[in-house]
Structure formats: structure tokens, C-alpha cells
């Protein structure tokens, strides 16, 4: 996966989380995932389609998710209020991924984002040769958060564009 795809997500996560938590955020780990994704806590998945396609999973351990929900709501959200905590994780995923998608679109990549959905299965799909998965671990004042990105360029669209470019030259 190319850095031009990854960087906007790092920047967006850093900006959104630092503003929400009013404290700095550090990337603790950055690894390529070969095995199926194992959910850490409460996770939301966003799918992309178009010139870039794939999925991103935003995952927070339960304690961190409850704290993030409280920050996002501006009022205490109990860890036992599962529905609010899940909603908050989905909304946070939407904000982080949406801001990164904005940057990528403004750089000339055209693709569509679907609304976030709760990722409930314990394991996600395995990465493949053309859909490498990158896992980013963020260390925040609320706890640990993870982002698992499996994205690829759409080959058919890329070749279509090459054909169009050939016709136009």
C-alpha cells in the first residue's frame, strides 16, 4: 500500500483525536497484517468503492471507547451503555475516515464512501496479494485505538483511464 494512501488517514486520525481528547496522540505501531483481522474491542467498518476500494476498520478497546463516547457527547457515557458507545465509535470512524477521504478526493482520487457499520465479527477477512492490510495503533490519553486499512487501487478503472488517455493522445 502506497504512502500517498496511508498518510491522509494518519493525519486525519491525529487531528480528529487530538482535538477531541485535547491531548497529543502517538502512533505506537504500524504493521502489515498477513493474518485475518482480530477485533480488539468495539469496531466500526467503512467501505470505499471507486478508484480506490477496500475497507477500513476503526477499533477501540472497551474502556477507551467509553471515554471517547463521553468526550464526543460532552457528557458522561457509561461503559455499560453499549448502544451509545457503539454509536460513538461509528461516528468517530466516520469523522476520521471522512476527513481522510476529503484529502484524497481533493488530490484527484475519486471514490465513494459508504456509511460506517458496526464490525461485530471477532475476525475480519484476510488480506490478499492485492489488498494489503496495514494496522496502525494509536496511544491516546483515553487508551488504545486501532485502524486496520485494506485498500487498493481499482485496476480496471486504472486501465480504463490509460485507454482513455491513449485515445486522447
Amino acid at each position: 500500500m502506497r504512502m500517498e494512501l496511508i498518510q491522509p488517514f494518519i493525519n486525519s486520525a491525529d487531528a480528529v483525536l487530538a482535538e477531541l481528547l485535547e491531548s497529543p496522540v502517538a502512533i505506537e505501531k504500524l504493521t502489515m497484517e498477513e493474518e485475518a483481522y482480530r477485533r480488539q474491542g468495539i469496531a466500526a467498518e467503512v467501505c470505499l468503492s471507486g478508484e480506490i476500494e477496500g475497507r477500513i476498520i476503526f477499533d477501540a478497546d472497551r474502556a477507551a471507547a467509553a471515554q471517547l463516547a463521553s468526550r464526543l457527547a460532552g457528557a458522561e457515557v457509561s461503559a455499560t451503555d453499549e448502544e451509545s458507545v457503539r454509536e460513538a465509535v461509528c461516528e468517530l470512524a466516520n469523522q476520521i475516515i471522512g476527513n481522510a477521504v476529503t484529502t484524497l478526493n481533493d488530490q484527484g482520487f475519486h471514490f465513494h464512501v459508504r456509511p460506517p457499520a458496526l464490525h461485530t465479527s471477532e475476525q475480519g477477512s484476510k488480506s490478499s496479494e492485492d489488498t494489503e492490510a496495514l494496522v496502525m495503533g494509536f496511544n491516546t490519553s483515553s487508551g488504545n485505538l486501532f485502524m486496520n486499512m485494506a485498500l487498493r487501487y481499482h485496476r480496471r478503472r486504472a486501465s480504463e483511464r490509460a485507454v482513455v488517455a491513449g485515445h486522447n493522445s
Partner: protein
Amino acid sequence: MEKFAPVTRSEDGQPVRYLIVDDSVFARKNLARMVETFGGQVIGEAGDGVSAISEYERLTPDIVLMDITMPQTEGIEAAEKIVRDHPTARIVMVSSVGYQENIVAALQRGARHFVQKPVKAEVLYEVIKYVMRDDSAAQGAGAGV
């Protein structure tokens, strides 16, 4: 949450009535809390574009806060349908996906403004004031012609 001077309707000084459209209940609650600090009244909510259109017909709110990425009918399409039938509708798009092409498409189809998530209360407040003032200024100019 910060307190703001109330924004009211210029014609009768009553609170601004809002319809909030977002597929996330959490986001709707947050926006509702925010507009209440502006002295507004949330008269309806919808979780997708189709419900937004029917709720607009039923409630005729002063302002619609409309998300873009939603299931079924998306926000820009819903805004276009509402404005086609109600040309004076004031729709403010509120979305995390704020690339230029999207903003232009929303404005071309009748939205009055765009606010990017995460929403800052002070930014939304200024936008609401602008959108509400926009009409009274236009009406004032029209009355003078």
C-alpha cells in the same frame, strides 16, 4: 457547552425550528444539543434522505441540518428534492466528507452552506446566523425594489 446569544426568526422573533438528518443517532443528539444552546428548537429528526424529504413536508422547519453519506437516498439528493419543491428551504450540509466536488454539488443543488465534521459549535453558530440573516437581508433588499 458554551452558551450563545439566541438566534431567532426575523419575522416573529420565535426560536429557529430545526430538522436534523443524520444516520447516526449519536451525531443527531450532538447536533440537537448544539442548536439548543443557540436557542433553537429541534422539531424533527431523520436517519436517511427519504425520511428527510417526508419530514420536511410534514414539519416545514426553518433549517435542515443534513448529513451527506447516508443509507438509501444520500443527503445531496435529498436536498435537491426538497429545494425543488420548496425553493426557500434552508439546508445546511453537515458532513465529514467535505471535498470540493461534494461541496460544489451540494451548493449547486440548493444547499445554502456546508459545515465539516467534527462540528465546532462556534462555526455552526456563525453559519446558522448567516443562513437566517441571508433571507431577511434578501427580503429587505427585495422590499426596497
